[in-house]
């Protein structure tokens, strides 16, 4: 028997959902509103109606070039994601289709590294970076972002690969595919939805990563997260400009997320219902 849902309950739940959604989105919305205020308005107190000036955006762009950190963000997030996938696809293949007694332990161990506070390894990482001359370099930061997101990428891919029937890969083996061809021609195309959502999620994670990007860069390799942070400077609080910088920093990823939301949701719920 189908549950009957009254129109009243539907409206009630819709309102509740909108309230929760608004609550989650509010900090971003308020940043956008603040970015359209003057600095005086910004510190004056809570107000949802800005004067609508675009001055902050112009100042931010003229004071510090937005384009360079933007490009850095793109290079770091896309680069680290591709690198992570290149490492993670074969790893996840091995764990999903040729598991050993220790596979579960390795997966847990990988995940456990994500439970550790990043600051705990700041010093050793900093020294390693300094020794190898990787500080404030795109290469160094790409490697760093690859490594910190790799456990999640491997886990996600592992989950998707587990859904693929092993018989299909065995068929490929019987058909004369080498291991590499099996991964390229059969496994990867079949796992495209999963790989795509992993890719998108990882780009978002890498784009928003602030701890390491701020700690390990100064100017040359600084992405948008460091760009935002640079506005909360010792010279004083510039809330409106900070908000303008934030808006500019999150806009690209927001747009990417918006266009790929179908893929993201499909990927994240992949395998939940057979």
């Amino acid at each position, binding site marked *: 028997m189908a549950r009957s849902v009254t129109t009243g309950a539907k409206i009630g739940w819709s309102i509740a959902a909108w309230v929760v959604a608004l609550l989650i989105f509010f900090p971003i919305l308020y940043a956008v509103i603040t970015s359209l205020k003057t600095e005086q308005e910004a510190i004056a107190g809570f107000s949802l109606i800005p004067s609508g000036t675009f001055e902050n955006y112009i100042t931010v762009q003229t004071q510090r070039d937005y384009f360079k950190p933007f490009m850095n963000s793109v290079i770091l997030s896309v680069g680290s994601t591709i690198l992570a996938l290149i490492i993670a696809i074969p790893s996840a293949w091995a764990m999903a289709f040729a598991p050993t007694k220790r596979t579960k332990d390795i997966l847990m161990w990988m995940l456990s590294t994500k439970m550790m506070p990043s600051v705990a390894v700041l010093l050793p990482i900093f020294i390693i970076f300094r020794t190898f001359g990787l500080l404030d370099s795109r290469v160094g930061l790409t490697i760093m972002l690859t490594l910190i997101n790799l456990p999640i990428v491997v886990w996600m891919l592992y989950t998707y690969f587990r859904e693929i029937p092993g*018989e299909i890969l*065995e*068929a490929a*083996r*019987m*058909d*004369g*595919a080498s291991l590499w*061809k099996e991964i390229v*021609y059969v496994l990867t195309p079949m796992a495209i939805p999963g790989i795509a959502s992993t890719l998108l999620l990882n780009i978002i994670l890498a784009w928003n990563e602030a701890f390491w990007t701020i700690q390990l860069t100064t100017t040359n390799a600084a992405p948008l997260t460091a760009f935002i942070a640079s506005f909360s400077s010792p010279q004083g609080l510039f809330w409106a400009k900070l908000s303008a910088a934030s808006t500019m920093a999150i806009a690209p990823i927001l747009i990417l997320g918006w266009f790929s939301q179908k893929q993201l949701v499909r990927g994240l719920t992949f395998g939940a219902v057979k």
Partner: protein
Amino acid sequence: MGSITLKNVQKHFGEAKVIPSVDLEIKDGEFVVFVGPSGSGKSTLLRLIAGLEDLTGGTITIDGKDVTDAAPAARGLAMVFQSYALYPHMTVRKNIAFPLKMAKMEQAAIDKKVEAAANVLNLTDYLERRPSQLSGGQRQRVAIGRAIVREPSAFLFDEPLSNLDAALRGTMRLEISDLHNQLKTTMIYVTHDQIEAMTMADKIVVLNRGNIEQVGSPMELYLTPRNLFVAGFIGSPRMNLLTGDYAKAKGATTAGIRPEHLTLSKESGTWKGRVTVAEHLGADTFLHLDVEGIGQMTARASGEFGAHHGDTVYLTPDETRLHRFDDKGLAIKA
């Protein structure tokens, strides 16, 4: 060519000896069926031949060449899986062409072979479709097509029909037999269905707990089962296995009589039984009876016999068709 020899083949999964030791000779062009209940090791044995599992011990030779440690593709065998195992992201054409592409064949030659295979299997109209747009029978034919184009020395079938409905199973059974007659290539076919085994095989290998119980032609197994297991497994409905006084009188621990070797009468006979269930199939009726002094028995009557639940029926065994087994379950030779 496609003769396959297994010598002392063993497979252990940890402590479990799935295949303790198997010796088997398969001749070129033979249609061999591995049959047995689930867990009998028939699929494992096929996968060992295919190279999808590593042997724990023993050797496998194909056409005189030792392939024990060879990669699956290097053995020149093609396999059809239970789940069809088609590549869902490729069209039928690309599915069938895949093994040829892996063998780095020229595109023109690939196209020609794919067209030829599609023609044999009535798939020409479906070449541009994806597997998801095909019916179960068509998918199975694509899987067979993918196997044919490689011109393997032997085909391996792993319960290929068990996902199909009964009617389609009958048709595909004929198609596979027909294919074997056309290609005359060695085929090894795994099934748990003794009807498939009886109807298709040149040679049946009956497996139980990883051991070969008997190897022989369908009629050999039917007429002279080597032991109780084969006697009970081959033939439908199952053979009646009688212990007790009747068997003792015949000098055996167990006496076996097939349902079709009991003569039925409504007036008189050796045994008196009461019908518990009558299964009317049309031409035949299978009677499940409660027989005095013996217990449950099954008998085959003609469709016109007309017995129903609760009726009393007299049975007389054809004692020339009696099977006798000793206390170890082995057949006693007359």
